[in-house]
């Protein structure tokens, strides 16, 4: 298993545009979480999905949305991009939603908004 995969690796967008980031979890993992990591800070929780349902949402505006597909892969969508959305977006998968589960991280997608 290649582990958690994310695409694309890098992305450059202009303010006001829309972006879609993709994540494929480890085989057998049903939970996917998204994190935003701004330079110099630790990752910040955006969303968690389990069995295609949203199980948690962090303190992010409604411009951020996500979904999980029947094969447990996930998309993160961001509308009306702002300069402040420039960050590394991390996806993590785990077998379940409990706090004791280890989360396995992907390599991230580097988003630059100009």
């Amino acid at each position, binding site marked *: 298993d290649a582990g958690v995969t994310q695409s694309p690796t890098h992305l450059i967008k202009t303010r006001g545009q829309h972006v879609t980031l993709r994540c494929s979890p480890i085989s057998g993992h049903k939970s996917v*979480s998204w994190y935003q990591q701004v330079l110099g800070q630790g990752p910040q929780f955006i969303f*968690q999905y389990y069995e295609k349902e949203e199980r948690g949402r962090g303190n992010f505006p409604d411009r951020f949305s996500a979904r999980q597909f029947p094969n447990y892969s996930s998309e993160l969508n961001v509308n009306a991009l702002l300069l402040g959305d420039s960050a590394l977006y991390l996806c993590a998968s785990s077998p379940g939603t409990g706090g004791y589960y280890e989360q396995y991280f992907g390599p991230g997608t580097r988003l630059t908004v100009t």
Partner: protein
Amino acid sequence: AQRVTQPEKLLSVFKGAPVELKCNYSYSGSPELFWYVQYSRQRLQLLLRHISRESIKGFTADLNKGETSFHLKKPFAQEEDSAMYYCALSGHRGSTLGRLYFGRGTQLTVWP
């Protein structure tokens, strides 16, 4: 509110010296606590968690509920320990269930 504080942004030691990376947390209840590590050009990965009480790569971390701390320690640092270290907590209920709250990270450099 949940919070993880890592007071040191940068930490440098010489090879063979002891190292301690500090982590303090605030959480109403009993959280799960983790240390994640990111080596250069690699993805974020779990180093250890308090519930397993393991020693990984010579590192240990003890949960001190009185001081709400979860410091990471290693008696003899190695050059390959140079990396970014993140302390994180996760809750067991409600909005905190399964989500990780990270500190800002400590960049550890071990000099030869």
